């Protein structure tokens, strides 16, 4: 489980107002950190401290996304059927069919065989039955399709392949399917602030340019395709803070200590590992408060002895990282 290839000479990066440059060490670190994060079922907390504000959290999320692209069946297909099959007839929940994206269907009970029925919402609308075999054809209104049709796929596979390098390969089906395992918890200032940060970071390969925002495949930012990263909005105080439904996340990347606190208190996130990126140039009082709160973690978390062996990248100058794992 090694980090990405350290050589990305084909890729250039720039922040808003800056010039194009080869990927600097700090960018490679964040992407590598997300890529190397262990997928072993152990709950961990990591804190990554930087000397300035940056798109570090989003870059770690990108690394985690890249990792999931290389894992077979790293998608929501299996859980999607269970989720749809658990729907009950109500006026609020509607689904669409991939082949008929303009039609809306409502849950209308079950047939004699116990299979869920979807009824098209128009006069003389058709009725269809949900089966495990056709679950990937259906998706909830307001959410991305679970799988793209035909030759469609996420548009920036070439960038993903360059970043991953030659040591691993992408499972092509993952570029066509939605995944809910990785969550980016955005800034407390709101989704717009997070969106601005990620949009300001751009990568370039040959003549093609793409923003970090586009690479992250968050549903709200790329609504017409599958989504590989869920977005957690810490300002959403009522209803779900997630931008879409899905299984419980396995990894959450929190952009800032206040967001970590919000994630920690969300019951849906209690089993997930959390990587928090924080700047040392923040409000000193907030940092002190966070330090006190983190000190209290000792009763539930301990030093992780496996850390030196799992291949997390060495932080470059200015970046400090610490990892704990859940006791027991």
């Amino acid at each position: 489980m090694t980090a990405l290839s350290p050589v990305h000479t084909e890729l250039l990066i720039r922040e808003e107002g800056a010039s194009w440059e080869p990927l600097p060490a700090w960018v490679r670190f964040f992407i590598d950190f997300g890529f190397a994060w262990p997928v072993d079922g152990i709950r961990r907390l990591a804190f990554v401290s930087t000397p300035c504000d940056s798109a570090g959290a989003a870059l770690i999320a990108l690394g985690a996304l890249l990792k999931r692209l290389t894992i077979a069946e790293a998608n929501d297909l299996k859980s999607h059927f269970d989720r749809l099959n658990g729907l009950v007839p109500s006026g609020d929940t509607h689904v669409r069919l991939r082949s008929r994206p303009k039609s809306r269907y409502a849950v209308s009970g079950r047939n004699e065989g116990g299979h869920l029925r979807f009824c098209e919402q128009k006069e003389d609308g058709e009725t269809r039955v949900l089966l495990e075999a056709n679950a990937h054809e259906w998706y909830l209104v307001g959410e991305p399709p679970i799988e793209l049709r035909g030759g469609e796929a996420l548009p920036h596979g070439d960038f993903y392949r360059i970043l991953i390098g030659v040591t691993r390969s992408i499972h092509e089906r993952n570029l066509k399917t939605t995944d809910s395992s990785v969550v980016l918890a955005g800034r407390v200032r709101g989704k717009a602030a997070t969106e601005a940060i990620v949009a300001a970071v751009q990568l370039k390969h040959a003549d093609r340019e793409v923003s970090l925002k586009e690479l992250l495949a968050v549903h709200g930012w790329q609504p017409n395709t599958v989504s590989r990263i869920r977005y957690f909005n810490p300002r959403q105080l009522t209803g779900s803070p997630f931008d879409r439904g899905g299984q419980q996340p396995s990894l959450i990347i929190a952009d800032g200590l206040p967001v970590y606190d919000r994630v920690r208190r969300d019951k849906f996130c209690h089993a997930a590992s959390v990587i928090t990126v924080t700047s040392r140039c923040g409000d000193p009082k907030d940092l002190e408060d966070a330090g006190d709160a983190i000190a209290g973690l000792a009763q539930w978390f301990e030093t992780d002895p496996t850390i030196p062996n799992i291949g997390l990248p060495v932080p470059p100058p200015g970046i400090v990282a610490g990892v704990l794992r859940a006791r027991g």
Partner: protein
Amino acid sequence: MSVPASSVFAFTESLTECEVVRHEFRSGPFSALRRSIRFFVRCCQDDESFSSTARSLHLSLVNWLSCPVNFSEFDATALQRVGTPEEVLRRWGDGAVEALDTAHRALTELRERENPVRSAVVAALAEHAACSKSVRIYCHPKCRDHFVALPGWVGGSHGFIHNWRGYRDVVPFDALIYVGPLRARGIVSLPPAVLNAPRQRTVLQFVWAGLDDDRDFGRDPVMGWLGNLGAMVNVADTGASASFTPNVWVRTCRQSADDDSWPEVDEDDLQVLQPHPSTVGMRRALLIRLSRGCAALYAPRTCVIVARRDESRVLCLAVAAEEIGPGDWLVRPRVEDVDFGGVTLRDGRYATAWKTRLEEAWRFRRSDIEHGLKERDVALEHLGDRVQWWCRQATTVIHAPQQREHFRVLIEVLGIEEDRNHYPRPPGVAWWRLAWREIAHSRGEAIQAGLQGHGIINDQIVAILNGPHSDLLSRLSHDEDCEIDLPPDSGLSGFLQCWPVEDSDENYHVPESLLGAIIPLQDAFEWRV
């Protein structure tokens, strides 16, 4: 505006050597003056009628210790407020007279001397200017004028940083100049990021003797704890440390002292004296620095109206006070009362019962009430006035003690809790809880009505200024405040005060009465903690 991360990381990577040079100064007459001022601050703090004098003296001392003041222009106004020698003798005794005499002699001597801190700062600025090195000065806003008044000051060549936000947004530079000890908290402080996330290669510190640095200044409170647990991911063995812990910095200390026979007693004035012994009754506040030497103080998360330039036009927004920044205009509505059909109450069932009991008890058994409260550690100032207030009929709220515990004790002292015959309640339920629920409910409604009314006016003003009357914002100037009359067809009657915002600062504790008011900036500074 944020600094690109690339430039900060590139700078950090280039740092192979970081230095803190502490220039420490000792002056006999200045030490004597400090000692005398400390004495009078303590005296005045113990006397409520001199509390403002205590604050003024303390602030003067802080000013002298944290700014490159010109000794010849020492402002002794605060010292004069303690009184004449005769008044001082009568009030505080012989020791105070001696301290006053010492202070005046020290002032006289100092006014004939150069401030060594000032001279050293001038020399440092000149040295860096000669090498074309970039310098930033970290100081409280009120110290700016002292730096600008330095001989050889070249406007525009040096920048000021006043708080952690300013440090966060500064591009990397060569040297940071700071007058005072390296501390993370207190009235003279700077953010630990100066050492653990530096934007400069050198810190030039100019400090008076007795003011030690915090031993752990620069410690990262988040990662420091993880480091103690041994939870850190391996650090690369490079010339520059990844962590920039305080011990990475090369520290140099250069001491100098004048030659004199004055007694030297250098205590840490910033530690031993507190401007406000207690912040009880104060509210945490944010200071918004405005034009013309004025300031506004707001509680955190207060919703205010600002006008803000967005490319080619000016927009009006309702934002939290923390989001106001330089370049904005603070818009303060001065509208005539709007009747929202506000909440008014009558005393509830429980309130009528305990108020009647309280009124009667206060009239005939006052000493029992006072004794009972004191015995239960409820020490309220001006109890008589408070009781009269609580006995009043409800208006928008049911008047009662602010704290739930005080109310519980009051009910207990009045004997209501034991008297089940006259004060029935459901089994298993304390009577005071039922009465308190009634009070809390009344307060919630009143607060909500106030908030809603304020919010409605704000929304309306934002809509007016962004809509049909957006031309009004063209009158805004960055140099001066102005008043804009609300148009007759706006539905509101009154005007808007618009103030250019220069900066903002935190760490203020102020009386409730100052929140939202426009006051002189110098007056606002005394509430900084």
